[in-house]
Structure formats: C-alpha cells, structure tokens
C-alpha cells in the first residue's frame, strides 16, 4: 500500500473519526517495499495542495525514512530551473510550453516516498483507540470485528 494512501485514511470506527488523534494512522512492524513507477509531474503538482505535510513527515520518520523538509515543497520546487523557464515563457510566449519539464530532486524524492514506497506487511494503528489494522501483501484491511461495528 503506497504511503500516499495514508493521507486519506483514518480509523474505521465511527466514534474515532472526530478525534484528531485518529489521523494519521501509525504504521507498526512495517515491512516496506519499493514498486518503481514513472514519475508524473502534473500528478505530483496536483496532489501537493492535498497533502497533510506534517502528518506525512511523522509517518516517514516513524518508518525510518529520510526526514522530509519541515515546510512542504512548492509547485515550483518540483521542476528543475522553474524560475528561469517562467522568465523565458513571458518573453517568448507559447514556444516555451513545448519544452519538457525536468523533475527536480525534490519531485523525485516526493515520488519515491509517496508513490513508490509502500507497506507490504505490517499494521496501521489508530492513535485514538489503538485498534490495529493489518496490511497483508500490500493491501490494508479495515474490516472491523462484529463488536466494533
């Protein structure tokens, strides 16, 4: 399960959802896997404003991944030499739109962490009720035992 998914997950127990402690879920005993994929700049740019950056930093650090910068990257940070390209665009208009954008190291790191790194086996734990959800073969299971439904 790619880490980006965690940005949109919380505890399945209704009474937990209103508690801030239920988000994000915390990985435990996680075995990570890398599934490589082609970097998609427009996708990263679009998802950027949706990221709960502080929470993603917490998850990354809990998983022992390289620490993320304290402030979220901007859209411009994702493209190599973006400021320069913008200047040319103003001067030459449409012609520049054809130039292929080169992903910056920031974009590559973000892609690696959010889309290529996944939890293969392990648990996701609710910070409010401590319920554990199992991740098996890369799929997280949120079905609740009968007494918790």
């Amino acid at each position, binding site marked *: 399960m790619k880490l980006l*998914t965690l940005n949109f997950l919380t505890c*399945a127990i209704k009474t937990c959802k209103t508690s801030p402690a239920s988000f994000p879920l915390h990985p435990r005993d996680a075995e990570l896997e890398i599934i490589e994929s082609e970097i998609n700049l427009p996708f990263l740019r679009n998802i950027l404003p949706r990221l709960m950056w502080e929470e993603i930093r917490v998850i990354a650090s809990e998983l022992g991944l390289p620490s993320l910068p304290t402030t979220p990257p901007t859209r411009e940070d994702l493209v190599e030499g973006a400021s320069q390209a913008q200047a040319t665009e103003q001067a030459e208009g449409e012609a520049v739109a054809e130039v292929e954008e080169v992903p910056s190291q920031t974009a590559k790191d973000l892609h690696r962490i959010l889309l290529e790194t996944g939890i293969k086996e392990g648990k996701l734990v609710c910070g409010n009720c401590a319920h554990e959800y199992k991740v098996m073969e*890369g*799929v997280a299971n*949120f*079905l609740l035992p009968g007494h918790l439904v």
Partner: protein
Amino acid sequence: MATAMTPDDSQGSQRYEEEHVHSVYEQIASHFSSTRYKPWPIVERFLKEQQDGAVGADIGCGNGKYLAVNPRVYIVGSDRSRNLAQIATQHYPHSAIVADNLSLPHPASTFDFAISIAVVHHLSTPARRVEAVEAILELLKSPQQGEVAASGGKALIYVWALEQKDSRRGWDEGHEQDVMVPWVLKEKKEKAQKERKGRRKEAKEGAGVEGEKSAAVNQPESAKPAEDKTFLRYYHLYKKGELERDITEAGGEVVESGYEKDNWWAIATRKQ
C-alpha cells in the same frame, strides 16, 4: 428467480449479507473480475469530468475497472472482498483497500468526488441502504457557505433497476424487489474450455449489460452442469424514484439522475 427472504434486525442483516453477498464475491472474484472490463458510459463521463488532481473514493471498487478511466485524478478504492481489492491495487497511481461501505476508514469532508457503482443494492434493508448513501455523502467536501450545493464534492451512485423488461432477466414494475441472482462459476476443464471457445462471442453478446453469465446464456449443451457451481447473490432492485428518495433521506441533494441500461443512477451532493 428466487425471492429473497431478508432478516429485519441489524445483526441478522450483516450475517445475511456476509453469506449472500460478501462470501460470494470472495469466491467468484477472479471470474467476476474477468467479466468486468468495460466502463459504463455515465460512470466514464463522470470520472472524466473531474478536474485534474481531484481526489476521489470508489466505494465497492471491485476489480478497480473505474480506477483506470482517468489517470489525472487520484482515487482510493475500497471493496469488501479482499480478492477483488488485491486485483484493484494494480491500477497506478491509485490505491485500493479492504473496507466495509458502512465503516469506511476515510476522514470526513475530504473528497472531491465519490463513486459507488452497483454496490448499494446489495444491502438488505432500507435503513442500511440509506446508511450506505450517508456514508458516501459524508466523504464529500461540503459546499462552501453561500455557494450552490453543486460547488461541493459530488457522488455518483448506480444501482440495478427493477424496470428492465427488455433485459434477459425481464423484471419490471410490480415485481418483487428483493431477489437472489445466480452467478455460475465454470469449472476449469481444459477440454470444456476448448469446446466453449467458439461460442464465446455469442455468449458475450447474449449477456446482459452487467456482463452477467448465467446458465441460460453461457452454458454449452455439451458441458456437464455438475461441474459448475452456482452462487446466489442478494440484490435489492430499485424502482423509479427510489434512489433519489434514499439520497434525500440520507441528507443529500440530487443534482442529476437518470436511467442507463437496466440501472438507475444519480449524482448527489451534501446539503449545506
């Protein structure tokens, strides 16, 4: 067609759906998935209309066929069947998890859009169907203060219709709405497969829009019926106006609704 006897208490309903919906899909997952590849036009249109970078949820995503429609959005799919969710995880850049549609593990008011295709009709009581719609609406971003309801997140819900007299099943107005629908799982026999090959095209054309395979359509005379296994799935067939009523009761507002090939559909938002 068998009429379904549905229990009326909540515990009983859960057990009933476990036996007559969840466990069936788990067992037929791979075969079911191989018949689910063509998106329905209304669903395809809805997904393609979403803005680039929109974030959505696919409640009851099955094998994830709708995850592949628009790669410029990000969708978290969920399904009650582990086997189907596993198949759905293959659709990059999207995600898929195992979850119950009445206990979804998503933060409320987060999603730009949601779809729930051929799912709500599997719940066996009116209250649970309304609850399922509520659970979908709850995921959506609320409309901004002072704006029209349509400015919030939108959900597309799609259910099987009672009125389908021209379909192979022939149900229509006035018929029983709670039914058991068979799924015939073919026993894998190489010889039988070969015999069937020549007939495959014919079978596909004969099948209903949902790609349902039944004994009547997909059964070559030469095959031994004893080798096949029939599973019965519970369905509540929606009659005209019923989906809209469920949405209103769940606190939603219907933006657009209609009928497409044996199914009722509606696009809904949350009320302000």
